[in-house]
């Protein structure tokens, strides 16, 4: 699990890649939070294009990021979700809580 951060004009783009399971997400939660705290973005984009596998650990990560963004009065967008990860998000009804594109 790797996270690549790009920040400009108070927009933060986090590109996630690899396997987003419990093992892979362990340090990623902290990394995502630190990236948000450093950039204080208005908009956070989580780009999932490189995610090769995701289970409910990814849901926890997305919800945590969303909570963090709510504290900052910002918004979150999840994009380029591969089909397997998309089914996980849909099964959990995450589309009602977070914008997925």
């Amino acid at each position: 699990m790797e996270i690549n951060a790009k920040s400009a004009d108070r927009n933060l783009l986090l590109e996630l890649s690899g396997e987003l399971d419990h093992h892979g997400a362990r340090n990623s939660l902290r990394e995502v939070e630190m990236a948000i705290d450093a950039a204080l973005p208005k908009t956070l984009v989580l780009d999932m294009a490189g995610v090769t596998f995701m289970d409910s650990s990814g849901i926890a990560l997305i919800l945590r990021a969303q909570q963090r963004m709510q504290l900052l009065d910002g918004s979150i967008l999840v994009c380029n979700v591969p089909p397997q990860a998309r089914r996980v998000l849909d099964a959990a009804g995450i589309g009602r809580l977070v914008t997925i594109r």
Partner: protein
Amino acid sequence: MKTKATNEVLLEFPSRSSNEGFARAAVSCFAAQMDPTLNELEDIKTAVSEAVTNAIVHAYPDAIGKVTVRVRICPGNVLELTVKDHGRGIADVEKAREPLFTTGGEERSGMGFTIMESFMDKLTVRSVPGRGTTVLMRKKLAPRMKSGK
């Protein structure tokens, strides 16, 4: 009542998180002989991941214990998965199966059982506090063109 399996495999490993990926890959390799679609294979991997992660996180929170995964191929193109631990068990299985319920803190979403239920056809959870938990899942794969055997 146990249906006779046409083929089966038993995996046993310590409850280390690095084995989550191993369990997914091993089950998916074994299930490949059923000629599943990519979607079916991904559904199976996801369900295995959730069940094994539960055992690793919840059954053995402060220790390393044994996790077993049994995969059985049953008549009618049915895949049966049993994930078993001898950990601390679940006091209230009903409650544990509710969406968003978790005792795992902020790094868990509480959606594990919901995902297993939605990705597999049948989910049975048996647990005895202090003795361990057994999660049984079944999934019927879509019939495919036969290529012999």
